């Protein structure tokens, strides 16, 4: 399988601390790739580097073979790299309808139209309805996002990334903070993502990781520790010692 997302010796320093220290990661097309590691291992920093929220101190990022290291965040989205956030980053004063519409308009290149009213482009409206329906958000689509229950906000978080129609999707703990009885809805939508969308998942919950991923990379202290198929990673004694051991004890 071709590699769609690759980092080469990626580094990020905050002051004297190396949050990410020489990570070379390869994500294959169509993969369900999980990035795991103990708290503070630098997982979210890697995502922020991949998406352009942070600039790397050194190293390169390749998206579908092209160097995007210096590319602005919004342009990487245009190139097919979308993400969700560990902590909801939504537009609290807008409705889910408007929120999803924004992402679709931008993708179709009509987001900067300033003399046309919102909602007059049937192509956009049809797609909004389709996405909201797929993510079980039609019943709350006219409500202010800030007033939605947490689980619905979490769904909107993913719906918004999907509305960008990514070829590579980065999911940063999609089920984080969601009550147990609402988790299945989120996980079902994640499992139902189109097969041609490459997914890089950050997750703490080992049940989710092992039921979802076909490849796992373990990040410890900002460096790639182990990289392999789930069964290899599960068997690796070093991983057990560093990571799984810890979480089993907890």
């Amino acid at each position: 399988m071709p590699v769609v997302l690759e980092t080469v010796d990626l580094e990020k320093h905050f002051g004297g601390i190396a949050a990410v220290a020489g990570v070379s990661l390869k994500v294959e097309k169509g993969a369900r790739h999980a990035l795991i590691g103990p708290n503070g291992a630098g997982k979210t920093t890697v995502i922020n580097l991949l998406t352009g929220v942070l600039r790397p101190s050194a190293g390169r990022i390749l998206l579908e073979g092209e160097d995007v290291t210096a590319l602005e965040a919004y342009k990487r989205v245009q190139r097919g790299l979308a993400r969700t956030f560990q902590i909801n980053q939504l537009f609290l004063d807008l409705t889910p309808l408007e929120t999803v519409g924004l992402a679709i308009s931008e993708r179709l290149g009509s987001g900067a139209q300033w003399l046309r009213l919102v909602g007059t482009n049937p192509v956009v409206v049809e797609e909004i309805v389709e996405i909201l329906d797929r993510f079980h958000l039609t019943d709350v689509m006219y409500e202010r996002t800030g007033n939605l229950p947490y689980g619905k906000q979490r769904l909107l978080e993913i719906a918004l990334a999907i509305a960008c129609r990514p070829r590579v999707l980065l999911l940063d703990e999609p089920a984080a903070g969601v009550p147990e009885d609402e988790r299945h809805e989120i996980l079902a939508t994640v499992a139902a993502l189109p097969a041609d969308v490459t997914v890089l998942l950050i997750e703490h919950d080992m049940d989710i990781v092992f039921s979802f991923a076909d490849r796992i990379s373990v990040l410890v202290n900002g460096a790639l520790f182990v990289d392999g198929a789930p069964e290899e990673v599960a068997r690796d004694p070093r991983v057990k010692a560093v990571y799984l051991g810890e979480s089993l004890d907890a």
Partner: protein
Amino acid sequence: MVAAPSPLVGEVTRRLATRARWRPYEYVFWLAALASVFLLPGKHLILTEIAWLGLFALSLDLILGYAGIISLGHAAFFGLGSYIAALLAKHAIINEPVLALIVSGLGAAVLGFATSFLVLRGSDLTRLMVTLGVALIMREIANQIPEITGGADGLQGVTIAPILGMFQFDIFGHVAYAYCLTVLFVLFLLARRVVYSPFGLSLRAVKGNPLRASSISIPVNARLVAIYTFAAFYAGIAGALLAQTTAFASLDVFSFERSADLLLVLIIGGTGYLYGGLIGAVIFKLMQDWIANLTPQYWQFWIGLVLVLIVLVGRDRIGQWTSAGRALFERISRRFARNAMPSLAGKGEGR
């Protein structure tokens, strides 16, 4: 894409269409403005001031209320528009006021575009300081080139030609008011269109969460540059209206007080719904006029007190008052609409 459009599509389209629908209070506002042209001829001088101040505040609302850019130097654009309009008229470069007005606005927009890059990054405090600095620089430039601007004496000897070659400004401000109100209305309609467009919606997204906005491929900086330039155009037009209706421009157009008062005007009226600046301008000017008549020397004291009260009560709560006021108004106007139709009036009373 789904094969057959779901019935929801029609409903959603209708719901989205109501976003930009004219509300009853909006009709009342503009009918009242129109009525004031005919019913309050003795007040046209102050109404003229209210009209250009309202436009100026509308300009600030576009960046503060919709894009979250706070400014303490919006007079930079107002002042530039003012001087351009006065100079165009004085040297008979463009005599026709409407054309001169547009050129003045474009001149201010150029300055807005050039300085927009200074407000892209940083906190509110940084933006306050940067915008304040730009206005101070503009004032000092105008002060240092008296051969062009008249320096501290102001630009004297400006004569404004008739509007469209037909309507000559009069000393009672009748033509001036009709002119300012027309310009305000046209630019208001444009602003209203813009804020209900996909571009306008994306501004609210940028204001709400720039991080997320850029991760759904909204070019945050480009949008901020665009609205800042657009707002500078509006501020320049407002300044040009002042110059044309008074046939004068002075350093005062760039003053810090003008920028600060503007923020006050907008906060009185509330941000982010376009009418805040207009309502704020009405309240501010009438209050100024009223208090100045009572105690000419203590105007500053009272406006200071009002400012303190507003900040103590909180901007949010003022916003709630204005939205509560609007809601009440909509209820009343709906009732009026019912009573206007005799067949429905009986039902209304029967409740």
